[in-house]
Every structure is written in C-alpha cells, then in structure tokens.
C-alpha cells in the first residue's frame, strides 16, 4: 500500500515538487503499479544470482594520453546561465 506520505518522501528523494493534484494521482497510480510488481514475490528466488547485465562486463582501460577537450564555448553554449568562462549556479554557502 502506497500512502500519501510515501509519495511525498520519495518525491523529495527524487528532487521533484509535486502539486496537490499530482500527489493524489501518483498515490493511486504508484499504488497500482507496485501492486502489479508485487506479483514478483510469488516467485521463490532464494539463492538465485541477480543479473544486472546480460553481457559479461569487464573493465575497459584506455591509455593515459593527453588529448584536447571540447572547446569551452561549445560546452558553455548549452548552459542555461554562464559568463565567458564559467557556468553560473546559485550561491551555496552563505
């Protein structure tokens, strides 16, 4: 059972602010989807290895070479707020 409190708690973790209407709708919808997912508890998975990835993954190393980075203006062009050399963010420390 998903409660309104759960939704508010999870929204904060996910860095979302939900409107009153969204909280109500999300409580209902998440509840239904979680109930649907609870079907998984029918299965006995004792001792079954979890599969995070279907491929056998291994570490990929590259040689430590100095290469040019992307041009600064190309990166800054996408920033919502910037000056000539920096991306601007709100003040963090008072």
């Amino acid at each position, binding site marked *: 059972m998903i409660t309104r409190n759960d939704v508010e708690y999870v929204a904060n973790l996910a*860095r979302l*602010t*939900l409107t009153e209407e969204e909280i109500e709708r*999300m409580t209902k919808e998440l509840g239904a989807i979680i109930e649907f997912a609870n079907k998984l508890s029918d299965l006995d998975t004792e001792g*079954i290895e979890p599969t995070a990835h279907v491929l056998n993954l291994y570490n990929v190393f590259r040689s430590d070479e100095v290469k040019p980075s992307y041009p600064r203006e190309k990166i800054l062009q996408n920033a919502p707020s910037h000056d000539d050399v920096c991306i601007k963010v709100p003040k963090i420390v008072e």
Partner: protein
Amino acid sequence: MLYKLTAHEAIELIKRKEVKCQEVVESVLERIKQVEDKVKSYITITEEQALENAKKIDEKIAKGEDVGALYGLPIALKDNLCTDGIRTTCASKILYNFVPPYDATVVKKLKENHMTLLGKLNMDEFAMGSSTENSAFHTTKNPWDLERVPGGSSGGSAAAVAADEAFFTLGSDTGGSIRQPASLCGVVGMKPTYGRVSRFGLVAFASSLDQIGPLTKDVEDCALAMNIICGHDPYDATSAPIEVPDFTKALINDVKGLKIGVPREYMEKGVNDEVKKAIEKALELLKSLGAQYEEFSIPIVEYALPTYYIIASSEASSNLARYDGIKYGYRTQNYDDLIDLYKKTRSEGFGAEVKRRIMLGTYALSAGYYDAYYKKGLQVRTLIKRAFDEAFQKYDVIITPTSPTTAFKIGEKVSNPLEMYMSDICTVPVNIAGLPAISIPCGVDSNNLPIGLQIIGKAFDEETIIRVAYTFEQNSGYRNLKPQNL
C-alpha cells in the same frame, strides 16, 4: 515518386547514375512537405543541410570519389541520438534547447557511409511510452489511420518510414520501442542483441536494456542498416567485442529444416483474435516452406512485465538524476536556493510519464524496498534469461506476435498507465534477456491496420532472424506494405 523506393533500390539507382542523389533527397523533402502536416513524425527537419549534402555527394560521385555504402541516402534519427550541432530534445521540455557537441557513434558511422540527414524524429519523452503521446512537442499520427497512435516510443521513426518520409530511420528499443511501433505502422524494425550496437551518444533511459536499431521498408534494408551501425566501440563499455558478420549474406530465401518454437503464453489472453490468426497463418506459410514449428511453454514470461517496470524505472531514475538545470537544458526562472532550483527545474521540465517512472524507480531503489523490488527484479531476470537459453537448446528461433493488438486510438489508453504498459507484453522479455528480435508485417486486420510478426533469436544470431524474416517476406506478399489513403 523516388521516395517510394526502398533504400537498396534508391542506392542502386544512384550507384548506376540513373538518378542523382539530389533528386532522391528533393523527392523525400517534397514528400515530407506533402504529408508531414498530417503525420507529424519529425521534431526537427534539416532541409538546408540535406540539400547541401546531396549536392556534395553528387560532386563526389562525378569525380569518382568514395561515397560509402549509402550514396547520400536521406535518412532520419530518433531525437534521442546525439547529433553534433543539431538539437537533440528527447521530446522533452527539459532538453528543448540542447545542442550536442558530438555525434553518437551510430551517427558517426552513418556519416562515414555518407548519409544525408533529414532531421530528428518524434518519440515519447525520454523514450518512455508505447504511443508517442508523451512527447512534449506533439503527437505523431499513424499513417494508416490518422486517428490512431503510431506506437512508441520510436513512433516518429516508424511513422516516417511508413509514410515514405525517410528511406530508413534509427530508433531505440528498451522494452519494445522499435518493434511495437514497427508492428503498428507496418514496417520492419529490429532490436539487435544487447551490446551489438554502441549506445555511446544515445540519451540513456535504462542502460542495461536500451539498444539502438533500424526501422526499414523491407528486410534487405534492415540488413544493410545493420551492416553500418553494428560493431564494438571503445567509448561504450557495454559494447560487445564480437565480430560483425555481413548481414546481407543472411538474405537467404530458405527455411528448410529450421525449428521454430511458439510459446503458448504469447498466444493466450489479451492477444486479439485477428492478430492470433495472422500469426498462425504466418507459421503455416513457414511450415509449407520447410520449417517445423511446435508450441511450447515458457511460464516465467508472465513475470516479465513487472520485472521490466522495476528494472527500467530504477535505471531511469538514476540516469535522469543528471537533469538539474545546471550544465544544459531547461532551468526554472524563479528559485530560492540550489535545491529549490533542482526541484523546480525538474518538476517543470519533466512530463507526467517521466515523473511517474522516476518516482517508481526511486521507490524501488530506496532503503527498505531495494531487496523486495530491485534485487528481486534482477533475480527474476536471471530466471527469464535461463528459460530462453533453455528454449534455444531446442529451437532456432521463437515466433510470437509483436503487439497484442493493432494500432489503438489516440487518447484511448493515456489515462490508464497499466493498460498502456500491456502494449509491450510480447516485446519486453526479449530486452530482459538481451536477445535480438525483429518485427515484420504479416498482414492487416479488418480495419486495414498492419499486424506484426516477432521473430526472436539467440544472442548474436541476428543472421538466422534475418533469414527467416527474408524468407517470410519474399513468400508472403507483405513486402514494403504501404498505407493507401495518405
């Protein structure tokens, strides 16, 4: 009417110097002008660059220079593939103005083969959805019936091919997002084996499930596109260092001795009767051509959909945590402090379905629920993978419907997320197990809407799938199926 040709036919004409690349590109741009108002498959159209590129290709051809495998063929890309200098929105408000500083590896490969890029195609926001109704820009219409959805999330990619607005397109498939819209729009769509195609430059939805693949007019075009996009990429640690065969060599009109498994569970409740009949007819045709088929049972697939929604949403919530309004994309206007900026930016920037999945994923990953949902999902994934491995001990391919129904009406399922999720019931198990699968047209229903046949193969055995699909296509009369009234 050059736009009506398949990719391989158009390339052949340019190669033989019977038409110029420019004529082909102009023909498709003309077609886009003619039907795009109705279909709305594009988000961005790069007309000027396309014409410029075509001219360059023609000059190269005149001089006898190398023009790769594509000869300037006009194609288009789902708008979650990064294109250097061309905006890439993921159909989201949060990325509405994002211009990538680099190309995705698949885009680089297409450029090396001298494609002409027509533009970027509409999709469900961040590839989340089964109808392309979740786009922050507009809803794409099904070219077969403009009141119906094209499927999703690569709905723009499928509709563009069906409406002849591109010779082929690339989409991405996390739970069926290439195959289901291909099925609903009557085109060929392939999800390659996980790891076959580099995901570098694909905006991630669920990293362990996503795979890029082509949507094409026929199976030969699919093989051609696969030859270009597949291969190991050091920029993607999940790309498989496995040799890529020449897929056009698998275009063999012969299925003699082939063993086909038909899982009972995929033909039961929820699957529309007309769809079921079309699949049975297709199986009979393959049998008459020398293949054998039999029903078998794979009961674990009943758990595939909840497993998928847990794994996909968990990975999505983690991937989408990067959207904070700092380095790129949308940023809210008014805020108090940094946390408030994050929250308002994300709440204003993401659409309803994306928020729903972020919430579900964050919940499944949160302390106290991790074991019950996420870890459990990964364990069930092991069981699903094992069940398929076992089935492939007996069968060369597995055949199922691609979608339980044909295209549904716009608005019909938007208010019920669980019902919408059911659209993916036949495609999702393939992503969970990382297998390759193709959807090809196998008929139309009484409303004249296309039906798709799904052929699933062993990991890295796309060749057998292509062979079965090609044989079916050559003998069924459903090659390059077109909507009549557009």
